[in-house]
């Protein structure tokens, strides 16, 4: 049943967002802390647990894959509901601050990426050298 997959996905999101809210109020922040990220981890976990696996295989998985495939259309709708006028009305200060923050952050991606563990092939060759 396709709906089982959709239900698993919904349950992960609701539980994740709830935990994110709890985490937020625990540290005294007016925001959901990592709710979506926690929900993603829950889904990954569920797909790897024997208990839940029937919900993530065969027909039920089609319910999850459908929403995964709807991601780009949803993002296009999200773009169409942004407050673009306010962004442009913010004037030079808002424009400069936004643009500068993005450029500096982009520049840091390759630097911080170096901290990740190398991919298996590379670590093998390093061990070979040692």
């Amino acid at each position, binding site marked *: 049943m396709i709906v089982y997959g959709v239900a698993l996905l919904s349950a992960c999101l609701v539980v994740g967002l709830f935990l994110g809210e709890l985490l937020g109020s625990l540290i005294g922040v007016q925001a959901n802390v990592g709710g979506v990220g926690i929900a993603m981890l829950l889904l990954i976990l569920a797909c790897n647990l024997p208990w839940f696996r029937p919900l993530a295989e065969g027909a039920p998985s089609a319910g999850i894959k459908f929403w995964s495939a709807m991601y*780009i259309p949803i993002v296009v709708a999200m773009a169409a509901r942004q*407050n673009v006028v306010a962004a442009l009305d913010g*004037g030079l200060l808002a424009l400069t601050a936004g643009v500068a923050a993005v450029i500096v952050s982009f520049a840091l991606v390759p630097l911080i990426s170096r901290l990740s563990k190398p991919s298996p092939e590379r670590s093998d060759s390093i061990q070979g050298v040692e």
Partner: protein
Amino acid sequence: MEELVKVLVSNQLIFAFALVGITIWFSYWLSDTFTGGRIHGSAIAISLGLVIAWVGGVLEGGNKGIADVEVLAGIGIMGGAMFRDFAIVATAFGVDIKELKRAGIAGVVSVIAGVVVSFVVGVVIAIAFGYDDPVAITTIGAGAVTYIVGPVTGAALGASSEVIALSVAAGLVKSILVMTGTPAVARFIGLDNPQSAMVYGGLMGTTSGVAAGLAATDPKLVPYGAMTATFYTGLGCLLVPSAFFLVIRALFG
């Protein structure tokens, strides 16, 4: 005509599915016909969405882009946080846990560095534009973090509504630039594997920006970037109005 409007208004979300479908079809046609597929169809669709949002904002004077037009309100539901989060979580289906672990410390560092760097950049720009009040400087810096951290910080510190509006605008500029700029710079910043996608998500932090930026670059990377980005706004709301404000007040108070 009256009948048509009635049907469209009472079936907003369904109508939105049709409209978004047509927009995406048109974008892929543009991509194939005029760029030979070099500029990705989804990148064009997202840019087109932003242009449509601007038109909506000019027509209606609201803050939800084209979704403020009554018959198009379904776009607002479809593109709202509920469906966005639902679809983002769905993309995690099939994520490789090993890839997540491999980014490990880099993912954590990227979120912290992202908040600090964007804040510092915002602060420097605010000072360059002549602001000398610690509350205003901190609020504008917070806006450079995300357009949620800006108003949260401004409200907590009692900033003027003009400064809060500025901080929201800075955050919106950031989010829109991440959406449109990511596919263009992806090659130069090595954004082509799950680990760098996690670092990218953590550094940029704007959920909508990262969501759209990665969608237009490589949809396979979406779950990795979204995973770290989702912790960014929370960390910003925690650090900026507290620790960062104290530092700014000590420096400029």
